[in-house]
C-alpha cells in the first residue's frame, strides 16, 4: 500500500513537471525568424575594430561590416578591386597609387575618401597619430613596409614602401586592411571596437556581450544590397553545444563543425559546405639536434605517418593530405607535380636503420586547441602511435595553446624533437618567409623553430618577395616547394578543408578559400 500511494504521487508530480516544462518550452523553441540569419560562432569577438583583432572568428563578422581597398575574388585567393577601383604600381615596386571608389559613405554617414584611407593607415602605423592609442594593433606589421601614406587628391591615395613587397595587395585584402570610419574612431576612441562603422553591406546594430553581435542590412550600400534583413553572430564556445544548437534549430549556420559531428548533418534538412583554404598542418622537426638532425630520419617520419588515415578517419575527410609547405589553395603558386610522401613504414624503418636512429626517444609537443590546429590531440595521438610502430619511443607533452606557443616559438632546442603547428595565410610568401628561412630562426625573430636552413631556399624566398611579376614569383615558389619537400624540415600532414553547415532555410551560401565568411548574398527563407 505505501508503495502504491507513493508511486502514484510520484507519477502525478512527474507528469505535472513535464507539463510545466512543456508548457514553458513551447513557444520559445520556435524557429528562428525569416530574413534573420543566425550564425554560430566559435567565440565572443574581441573587438569589431579590424586593426585590433587577429582571430579568424572575428574576421568573419568584420568582412561583412567593412571593406578594404582590395578583396579576394570570389572562390580564389586572387586580388580584385573593392574600395579602390584601380591601382598603379611603380616600376621599382615601392609606390602604389590607388584610385578610390566614388560615392561610398560609411555607416555613420561620413564620406569615404583618401583622407579616410590615410587616417586608417596612420592610426595603425604612426606612433604619434592622435588615435594610435586606440590600439594596440597586433598585425600592423602586415603593413610594416609602408613608409608613408599620401593623399594625392580626394579620391587618390599613394603608399610608399621602404622596399619592394609583393604581398602588399594581398595584405590589403586581408581583414587587417579593412577601412574604418575616421569619424567613428574620433567619436568613440577606445570604445570604437564596440561601436564599429565601415562601408560594408551590413551595418552594426547591437552587441550584447556573450550573447550576440547583430548586424543589419545597409540599405545605402554602394553595391548589391544584402539578401537578409539581419545577421546575428552567436558566440558558442563549446563545439558540442554548437552542434546541439544547430540540431535543435537554435542557429541557422555554423562553421568549424567538429569532424566527428559531421555525420549528424548528413541527413535531410542540412547541407554541408566545404572549401579548401590556404592552410597547412605540419610537424616542426628539430633539425638542429637529436635524431631529426639527420635528413633521412626526417624523411622517415614523413613516410611513417599514415596521413591518409589521419585526414580520412581522425578528421573524417575534413582535410586532404599535404604534399609540401605551400597549400594547393594558392593555385598559382602551387607545384602540381609534387606528390605527398606515401605511407611506407617499411621504408621508414630502413631509413631509420640507415641513420642509426633505432629506438630513439622523441619528445613531441602537442597543443590542446588553437587557431587552425583542427583536432590536435587525437591527431597527435595517432601520429605518436604511427611513430611508435616504426620503432621510436614518443613522449607526448600537451600544452594549452598560449603556453604551447610560448614553448614552441622560441625554438625547440633542448626541449623537444617535434611540435605540431598550423598556419593559415593569405599569401604564399608568408609562411615560408617566416618559418623556413635561416634568417627566420627564433633568435632572429622568426618562426623557424626547427632550425631548418638551406641557402637555396633563402635565396628563392627573397627573390619571390621582391618580384612584382606573378608568374616569376610562382616559378620561384614551385622550386622552393620541391627543395623543401626533399629536405623534409617538417612532416607535411594536412590541408584543411574548412566546412560549414546550414539548415535548409539558408540559400546561396558558399565558403571562400580565404576562410572569410561573406554573407552578403545569402538568403534565408
Amino acid at each position, binding site marked *: 500500500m*505505501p*508503495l502504491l500511494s507513493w508511486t502514484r504521487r510520484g507519477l502525478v508530480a512527474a507528469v505535472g513537471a513535464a507539463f510545466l516544462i512543456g508548457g514553458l518550452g513551447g513557444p*520559445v523553441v520556435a524557429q528562428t525568424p525569416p530574413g534573420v540569419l543566425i550564425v554560430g560562432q566559435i567565440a565572443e569577438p574581441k573587438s569589431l575594430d579590424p586593426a585590433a583583432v587577429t*582571430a579568424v572568428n572575428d574576421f568573419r563578422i568584420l568582412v561583412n561590416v567593412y571593406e578594404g581597398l582590395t578583396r579576394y575574388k570570389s572562390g580564389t585567393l586572387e586580388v580584385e578591386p573593392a574600395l579602390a577601383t584601380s591601382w598603379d604600381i611603380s616600376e621599382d615596386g615601392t609606390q602604389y597609387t590607388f584610385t578610390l571608389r566614388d560615392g561610398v559613405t560609411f555607416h555613420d554617414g561620413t564620406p569615404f575618401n583618401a583622407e579616410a584611407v590615410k587616417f586608417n593607415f596612420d592610426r595603425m602605423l604612426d606612433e604619434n597619430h592622435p588615435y594610435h592609442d586606440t590600439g*594596440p594593433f597586433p598585425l600592423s606589421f602586415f603593413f610594416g613596409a609602408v613608409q608613408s601614406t599620401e593623399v594625392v587628391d580626394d579620391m587618390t591615395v599613394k603608399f610608399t614602401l621602404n622596399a619592394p613587397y609583393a604581398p602588399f595587395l594581398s595584405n590589403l585584402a586581408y581583414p587587417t586592411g579593412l577601412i574604418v570610419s575616421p569619424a567613428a574612431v574620433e567619436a568613440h576612441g577606445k570604445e570604437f*571596437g564596440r561601436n564599429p562603422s565601415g562601408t560594408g553591406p551590413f551595418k552594426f546594430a547591437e552587441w550584447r556581450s556573450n550573447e550576440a553581435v547583430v548586424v543589419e542590412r545597409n540599405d545605402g550600400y554602394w553595391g548589391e544590397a544584402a539578401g537578409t534583413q539581419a545577421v546575428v553572430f552567436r558566440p558558442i*564556445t563549446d563545439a558540442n*553545444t554548437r552542434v546541439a544548437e544547430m540540431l535543435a534549430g537554435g542557429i541557422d549556420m555554423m562553421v568549424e563543425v567538429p569532424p566527428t559531428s559531421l555525420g549528424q548533418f548528413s541527413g535531410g534538412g542540412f547541407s554541408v559546405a566545404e572549401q579548401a583554404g590556404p592552410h597547412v598542418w605540419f610537424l616542426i622537426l628539430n633539425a638542429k639536434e637529436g635524431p631529426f638532425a639527420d635528413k633521412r630520419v626526417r624523411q622517415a617520419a614523413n613516410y611513417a605517418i599514415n596521413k591518409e588515415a589521419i585526414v580520412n578517419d581522425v578528421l573524417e575527410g575534413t582535410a586532404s593530405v599535404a604534399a609540401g609547405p605551400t597549400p594547393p589553395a594558392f593555385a598559382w603558386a602551387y607545384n602540381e607535380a609534387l606528390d605527398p610522401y606515401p605511407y611506407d613504414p617499411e621504408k621508414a624503418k630502413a631509413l631509420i636503420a640507415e641513420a642509426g636512429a633505432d629506438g630513439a626517444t622523441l619528445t613531441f609537443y602537442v597543443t590542446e586547441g588553437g587557431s587552425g590546429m583542427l583536432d590536435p590531440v587525437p591527431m597527435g595521438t595517432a601520429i605518436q602511435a604511427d611513430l611508435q610502430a616504426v620503432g621510436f619511443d614518443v613522449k607526448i607533452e600537451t600544452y594549452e595553446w598560449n603556453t604551447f606557443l*610560448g614553448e614552441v616559438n622560441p625554438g625547440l632546442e633542448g626541449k623537444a624533437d617535434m611540435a605540431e603547428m598550423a598556419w593559415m595565410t593569405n599569401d604564399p610568401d608568408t609562411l615560408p618567409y617566416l618559418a623556413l628561412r635561416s634568417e627566420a630562426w627564433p633568435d632572429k625573430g622568426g618562426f623557424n623553430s626547427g632550425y631548418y636552413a638551406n641557402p637555396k631556399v633563402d635565396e628563392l624566398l627573397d627573390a619571390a618577395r621582391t618580384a612584382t611579376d606573378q608568374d616569376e614569383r610562382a616559378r620561384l615558389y614551385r622550386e622552393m616547394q620541391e627543395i623543401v619537400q626533399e629536405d623534409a624540415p617538417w612532416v607535411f600532414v594536412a590541408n584543411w578543408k574548412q566546412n560549414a553547415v546550414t539548415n535548409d532555410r539558408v540559400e546561396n551560401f558558399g565558403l571562400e578559400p580565404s576562410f572569410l565568411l561573406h554573407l552578403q548574398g545569402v538568403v534565408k527563407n
Partner: protein
Amino acid sequence: MRGAMMGGYILKRLISAVPVLLGITIIVFLIMSLIPGDPATAILGSYATPENVEKLNRDLGLDKPMVQRYFIWLGNMLTGDFGRSFSLNRPVLDEIVERFSATLILAGTAFVLCSVLGVLAGVVSAARQYGLADKAITFIVLIGISVPSFFLGMMMILLFAVNLRWLPVSGMYAIYGGGDLPDLLNHLIMPALALAAVATGVIARLARSAMLEVLRQDYIRTARAKGVPERRVIMGHALRAAMVSIIPVLGIQAGFVLSGAVYIEIVFQWPGVGRMLVEAILKRDLLLVQGGVVFVAACYVMFNIAVDVAQSLLDPRIKT
C-alpha cells in the same frame, strides 16, 4: 541590544575580511605572473615574434617591474578602476558586473534549488528512514553526486533540447524575441538543475544525518509529548535544530556551486563569470582574471559573513 551587538559583530567580521581579500589580491597576482605565456603571445598568436611581443608588452604597460605593477593595480582598484581587458577590449569592471550578474542568476537559482531540494530530500529521507522514499532519495542523490556535472549537463541537452525540443539548448535569453522572465526561466531550467545536482546530493545527505541526530533529541520527544502535530515536529522543531548544522554546509556548498558554475557555463554557454575567468586565464588577460577573482572572492567572503550572521540569528546560543 541584540541588534547593536549584531551590528558590531558584522563590522568586526567585515574588518577581518580585509586582510583575507588583500591576501587574495597577492595570490592571484603572483599566480598570473608565474603562469608561462604572456598576454602579447596570446594576442599575437602565430605572429608572436620577439620584437612584436616586446612592442605589445610596452603598449600594455607590462614592461614595468612586478612589484610596481602590483601596486599600480591595487591602487587603481581602490579607486574603482579595474583596468581594461585586452582580450575583450572593454573596462574590466563592466564585463565583471555584467557577467557576475548572469552567474548570480544561475548560481543563485541553483543554490536555492539545492538548498531547498537538498534539505527537503534530507528531511523526507530522515522522516521515512529506511522507507521506500528514503531509499529512492538516497539513490537519486547518489546519482547526483556521482556524475560529473558537465556530463549530466550534456546529457540533459541531448535529451531535452535536441531530441524532445522542450527547452532551448544554450544561452541565457532567446536571441530573437524573448528577453523577458519566462524566457529567462526557460533557459535557466537545465543549467540550474545540472549545477544544483551535486550540491543537492551533498546537502541531502548532510540534512538527513543532521535530522536523524536531532530527531533523537529529548526536545523532540517533548514536542511530541505536548501533542504537537508530527508535521510540525519535523518541519518546525527538528528542522530548525538541524539547520544549525546544515547552514555552515550551505555556506561551503555555495562556494562549490559558484566554482562548479564554470563547467555548466561552458556547456550551456551561460554568459557567466566562471566561463569568463577560464577564457581569460587561457588568453592571459591578466587584469580581467585578477579583477574577476578578487570580485568573486569578495562576494564569497561577504556571503560567508552573511551565513555566519544567519547562523547566529538562528542559534541564540552562539556568542556574537
